[in-house]
């Protein structure tokens, strides 16, 4: 695994996406959109109905998070990743709309790994349960859509030095599989 941490910008350009490799550690600067179960369902329903989306997904990165409510004066509450694989059934229509990156925790299905190869997208993992620490790399949080969904609404986040690791790249490499193999004693 590459040891040095690289800085990348979100949204991501094609060169960045194609250059990333599973196991690479990154620090993000830029913009993420938040979405999880209910907001994914709505986005895909809008696409199926041929209606416009509340956000342009071209080159964008979606962070799978449902933050806690912010205290007065706070940008955001605690904001760690939720389980990525729950969003697996929704991915293809979003990739077709230009989505290039996702951030969450845990493995994804082989179907999504194949979709990432086909649509030239990558998936990042960050540390589940480090929510208070992760919130410190989020500088701004604005409500964008589906406000009625509460914590599941789509927010626009501005992030700085947001840590993640490339879990799956555009070649179909799998950080999880490789990493576990190194330490397995079974």
């Amino acid at each position, binding site marked *: 695994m590459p040891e040095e941490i690289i800085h990348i910008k979100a949204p991501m350009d094609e060169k960045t996406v194609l250059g990333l490799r599973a196991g690479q550690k990154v620090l993000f600067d830029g913009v993420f959109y938040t979405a999880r179960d209910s907001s994914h369902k709505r986005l895909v329903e809008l696409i199926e109905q041929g209606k416009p989306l509340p956000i342009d997904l071209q080159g964008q990165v979606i962070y799978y998070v449902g933050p*806690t409510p912010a205290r007065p004066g706070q940008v955001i509450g605690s904001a760690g990743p939720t389980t990525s694989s729950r969003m697996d059934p929704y991915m293809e229509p979003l990739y077709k709309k230009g989505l290039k990156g996702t951030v969450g925790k845990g493995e994804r299905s082989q179907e999504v790994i194949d979709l990432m190869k086909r649509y030239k997208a990558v998936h990042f993992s960050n540390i589940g*349960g480090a929510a*208070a620490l992760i919130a410190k790399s989020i500088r701004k949080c604005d409500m964008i859509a589906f406000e009625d969904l509460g914590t599941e609404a789509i927010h626009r986040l501005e992030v700085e030095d947001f840590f993640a690791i490339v879990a799956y790249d555009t070649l179909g490499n799998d950080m999880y599989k490789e990493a576990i193999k190194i330490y397995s004693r*079974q």
Partner: protein
Amino acid sequence: MRRIEADAITQAVERLCMEANYFLGQDVIDALERSLKEEESPIGQQILRDILENARIGGEELAPICQDTGFTVVFVELGQEVEVVREAECGMQSAELNPPFNIPNSALREAITKGVAQGYTKGYLRASIVQDPLRRINTKDNTPPVIHVEVVPGDRLRLTIMCKGSGCENMSRFAMLTPAQGRKGVVNFVVETVLKGGGRPCPPLIVGVGLGGTFDQAAYIAKRSLLRPVGSHHTEAHIKELEEELFEKVNATGVGPQAWGGRTTALAVHVETYPCHIASLPVAVNIECHSHRLKTTIL
């Protein structure tokens, strides 16, 4: 009879919900620090350090240590000499409290539910519960909780609050093994459950195993095993040996912190048992993450 006012229960539950979410228990911190010494993977070490740093921030800033502030599971040990009494003015309508439809509201249930609602609202904790599993409309105050009541001797009321994240709860599994599959079958099922979960339940884990009883009882004791101090052992020697074997095997999987590879897949494995039917060997594996939010008080 000793009378305990419902309001005292509400206040206690409100406080425990907040404390559980801000302050990681010392037993978990100690287990994380022990693991850090054993962990071989550099990124695994970094994750463990980040988790400890996250716990420090949570405690100092009263920030929830995880954004999934969980399903509130309340374990009540109700002394049989205790009577829970409502104050006259404490008349919240039960409909507001989102009672599970088939359980009538008692003063105890109402008081606990109100405490959860207040704790989650005042404590800036996330509302993660939907009223109906299919319609999925958020109840907005994290109620109703899941409440388990055991009637015990005495005139005290012990309340234990577990704020159970769903990332890990979702990776829990159940099997009705046959008596012939025995201990080996149990070991294989537990290890397989951890491997299948991978990074989804946020390892390092605390693995709660319930062996025996009925379908429901096995799941209940699996969850109850998580109430023990992390890394403590069962009093029966052969169950302690099983816990040790499971701990070793789970940590030999290579899954490691966050499944990014390493030694620390679990901080502990706890097993609880219950007598069972001649035809059965139920095994429930309740997966808990490192963000083990558990607080208790006695009234």
